[in-house]
């Protein structure tokens, strides 16, 4: 029972359920235009529309919307007038020949929504070249929505540049001939025979011999084999699966015909094969393509024919789609299989989608890309273009490639502007590669960021380069070098320093303004077996107004020296650096 309206209230604008319903229909299409049909707002709107429709149908039993070129009518009452042609709700349907749409009371949401979406697709031109609205809904065979259709304007061939009158004439003539004369004219019945019956039979059946044909032709009427229930089931099931596997079968067949084909034919085959891959990928039917490719690649001999065939399948748009699909758990495996089986040539087109992909997707792609052996130049160019965001994945990939590829990538990283990239590059310089990278690493010793200086120093230290002591000393002498770096140099000097190391460390211990550095120098002197170090430590350790931390460090250092002299190894020698490979920033 309807709620009673409060006294004195104005009737609402949507009081008429029919107008409310049509208003909601219009609103829903506007929302579809703005957000697309898959958006939450669109879904909410179509739900409201369905509720309004079912409420109307509960009251009225059915709803018949009659269309003309610009309006919708119900019972001769105009309920919608299109004001703008480009946003018309009815024009496309009217042109298609739709006269009316009737919703019956039993209409379910499962029927209504696909119908509504087909309507929207029709007015937004998204039904494609195969279907019009009326042909689409006919095939959907809606049980509770009836669409009445007359011959539409698009039936007469105007759009194809053909003469509709001539077609109508031919139709009438053919129709007349079919139902017309009982007897054929002499010309029709008695044309000269160029190909014999046997020739026809051989052409159609291929292997039929003359005697076979004679025996069949003269045989008495046969009892035809009966169509068993199992035949019927097999046929229905087979027809159902035909469409699903078409891409797979077509691609495989095209490959079979590719090697012996003429150049022109090859071109056509390539174009079609590329289209199959593109169309089916767009349609989400990659499994067919991936299965076909697996079959082709596994059965074919590796060679230029296979390379040429596969090369034509690498459309950049397809590659982009495939990378996106790796993010979709349902499609990821097929997409990766396809990427695995497509030839190397697509890798060139992968830069952008690879860079934009999420890190976990990139990690999965790396495994596929590694098999394609991309060149170091290519990886270097990706690094220069996309920088820090991609550096981890690129090195993950390069680690699986040969040294040349790694070499290119490291060089690109070392000259890059971004500290993260430079750091990564420094961490990848292996000790025995140092000679070839020295000229690129050395400038990084003067980088403003301590981390980079440290990494550059580490690279030299791990390579046990002969200039390490000099480098350490120069860092310690550099007023711009951060304390952090200097601390590391102090430890380095203890390990690698030559005769001058003790005096330098002693000088730092006694004169440097940084307490941290003096502590570090005191501890480092324990590793330098030099008589002057002993004296300096004793002196600084006993300084009356000396820093407590420094004094403590001196005493600790003296204790270690004493232990060493007594033949006991110091308990925790300070490490000169952190090994590069453990210093992964990602």
């Amino acid at each position, binding site marked *: 029972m309807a709620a009673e309206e409060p006294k004195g209230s104005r009737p609402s604008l949507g009081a008429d359920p029919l107008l409310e319903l049509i208003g909601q229909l219009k609103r829903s299409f506007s929302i579809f235009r703005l957000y697309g049909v898959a958006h939450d707002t669109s879904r909410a709107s179509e739900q409201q529309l369905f509720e309004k429709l079912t409420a109307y149908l509960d009251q009225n039993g059915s709803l018949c919307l009659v269309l003309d070129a610009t309006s919708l009518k119900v019972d001769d009452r105009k309920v919608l007038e299109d004001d703008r042609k480009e946003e018309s709700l009815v024009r496309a349907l009217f042109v298609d020949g739709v006269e009316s749409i009737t919703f019956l009371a039993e209409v379910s949401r499962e029927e209504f929504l696909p119908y509504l979406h087909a309507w929207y697709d029709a007015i937004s031109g998204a039904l494609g070249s195969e279907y*019009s609205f009326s*042909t689409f809904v006919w095939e959907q065979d809606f049980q509770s929505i009836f669409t009445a259709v007359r011959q539409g304007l698009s039936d007469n061939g105007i759009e194809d540049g053909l003469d509709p009158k001539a077609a109508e004439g031919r139709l009438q003539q053919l129709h007349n001939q079919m139902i017309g004369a009982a007897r054929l004219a002499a010309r029709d019945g008695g044309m000269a025979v160029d*190909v014999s019956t046997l020739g026809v039979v051989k*052409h159609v059946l291929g292997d039929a011999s003359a005697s076979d044909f004679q025996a069949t032709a003269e045989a008495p*009427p046969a009892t035809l084999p009966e*169509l068993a229930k199992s035949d019927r089931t097999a046929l229905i099931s087979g027809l159902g699966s035909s469409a699903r596997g*078409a*891409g797979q079968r077509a691609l495989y067949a095209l490959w079979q015909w590719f090697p012996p084909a003429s150049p022109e034919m090859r071109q056509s085959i390539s174009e079609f094969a590329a289209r199959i891959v593109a169309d089916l990928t767009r349609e989400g039917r990659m499994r067919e393509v991936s299965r076909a490719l697996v079959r082709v690649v596994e059965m074919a001999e590796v060679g230029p024919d296979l390379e040429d065939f596969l090369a034509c399948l690498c459309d950049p748009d397809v590659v982009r789609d495939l990378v996106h699909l790796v993010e979709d758990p349902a499609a990821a495996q097929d997409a990766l299989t396809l990427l695995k089986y497509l030839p190397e040539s697509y890798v060139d087109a992968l830069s952008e989608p690879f860079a934009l992909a999420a890190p976990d997707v990139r990690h999965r792609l790396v495994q596929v890309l590694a098999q394609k052996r991309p060149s170091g130049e290519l990886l270097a160019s990706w690094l220069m273009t996309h920088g820090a965001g991609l550096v981890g994945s690129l090195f993950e990939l390069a680690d699986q490639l040969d040294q040349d590829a790694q070499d290119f990538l490291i060089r690109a990283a070392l000259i890059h502007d971004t500290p993260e990239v430079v750091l990564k590059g420094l961490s990848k310089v292996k000790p025995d590669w140092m000679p070839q990278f020295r000229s690129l690493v050395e400038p990084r010793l003067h980088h403003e960021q301590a981390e980079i200086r440290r990494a550059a120093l580490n690279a030299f230290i791990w390579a046990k380069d002969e200039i390490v002591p000099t480098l350490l000393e120069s860092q310690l002498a550099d007023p711009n070098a951060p304390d952090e770096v200097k601390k590391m140099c102090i430890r380095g000097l203890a390990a690698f320093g030559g005769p001058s190391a003790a005096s330098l460390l002693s000088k730092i211990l006694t004169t440097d303004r940084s307490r941290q550095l003096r502590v570090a120098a005191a501890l480092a002197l324990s590793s330098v077996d030099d008589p002057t170090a002993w004296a300096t430590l004793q002196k600084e350790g006993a300084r009356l107004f000396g820093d407590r931390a420094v004094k403590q460090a001196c005493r600790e250092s003296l204790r270690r020296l004493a232990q060493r002299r007594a033949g006991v190894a110091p308990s925790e020698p300070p490490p000169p650096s952190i090994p590069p490979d453990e210093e992964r920033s990602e």
Partner: protein
Amino acid sequence: MKRVETNQQREARGSDFLVQFIRLLRVAGVHDLDNSAVDQVTKEVVRVIEDDFTVFNALAIQVAGDQVYFNGEFIKLKGAAFEAAGQARRIYQRLSINEINISNVVDAATLKDFLRQFQRAMQSATPTGFAQLKFTNIQVRALDEHHRIGIDQRVALARSYAQLVVILQESVLLLDRKKPLPLQRIRRATQALAQTAEGNRSLLAGLTRYENHEGDPAFHAAAVGALAMLMGLELKIGRKALMALSLSAVFHHIAEPRGISSAALVPEGGDSEELRQNEALSTALALARSTPSVEVVERASIAFEAAQPAAGDRKGIIPSMAARCVSVACAFDRLILPGPGAAGVRPDQAMRLLVEHSGTRFDKKAVRLLASIVGVYPVGSLVRLSGGQIAVVVSAPRDPNLASRPTVRVVEEKGAEASYLIELEREPNLAIVEALDAKQERLNVTHFLLA
């Protein structure tokens, strides 16, 4: 003496009767017949019937395919008639009937007797057999090949078939001009054919025998499309699958040479399989070039595979089931109507050749399916009966054990023209003794199929 009214007035009466009568059926379908609502509607309908009988001799609502007719005339569906037509379709479909005919004025009690049975059938889980019930002054009929209702859907079917041929002729022209095929129009024409074929399947099979004198590939395409459609209809597959199969069949040879000429024959010692497959590949590629839709993948695939042996070719390509069905339909048509200058075989010979080669060249199941549609003597075959009559086969027998006893239209008897139907299933004293070549006899079989 009936009152004379203008056509417009009669149409309006038909439309009104449809609305009133279907309303009564709906009310009876959901309410107890003793309900006062039913009483009132029944009385109203009785009054309408009485009034309408002053103009008409009978009042029949007929449903064929998606169309609703009143006394064999299309009803212009406006306003309430739209809804009533949709409801009529649903009711008739549920009861498996095509016509309810009121042959004389009925009173409320008679009408209620009818409604009682109607209600019982509607509420039954398996509402079969309603068409067999007898009522006073009311007849219910299911449309079949032999008991046609007043409307002539056969002419509509012939026109739909001709329409498809004409659109395919245009498509071939467009293909020559390297323009895209008019896919939406072809689909619509094929759907129209499927709609009008319902209840007239034998006729459609017969229409495919229309002689293609010019070797126009559109005729072959339409014939194979129609045969594949009949196969799909026989299997009761859904509309979407039916269209996919039919359209694949329509397109399977669209770009190929017209008819079988001596130039197309394989020279002695040549590889016929290789040649056939090359042709099929060209078709598939031409189709792909001219079709801007993803459906082309399946069609091109079928166009190619239809040329392969059912058991698979040397390259390991095994045709899909759809391709096997198309292959059988194509071979059947090619054998009978190979084009100008080539001598085809008779339809019965074609069917036997297919059976002979099933299991190797052709799929056994697909051949059986076609055979169940066209029979030993396919629709459109010209035959001589044991009584000396010359007749055209107009429908295949329903009982497969009586496959050689179809329904025929006698077209010549004792040297004189004739035109009457014989159901050989019911005439044990008559049999087919010989199949004849319609071309040699210079007979236009489609004329007799539509007669």
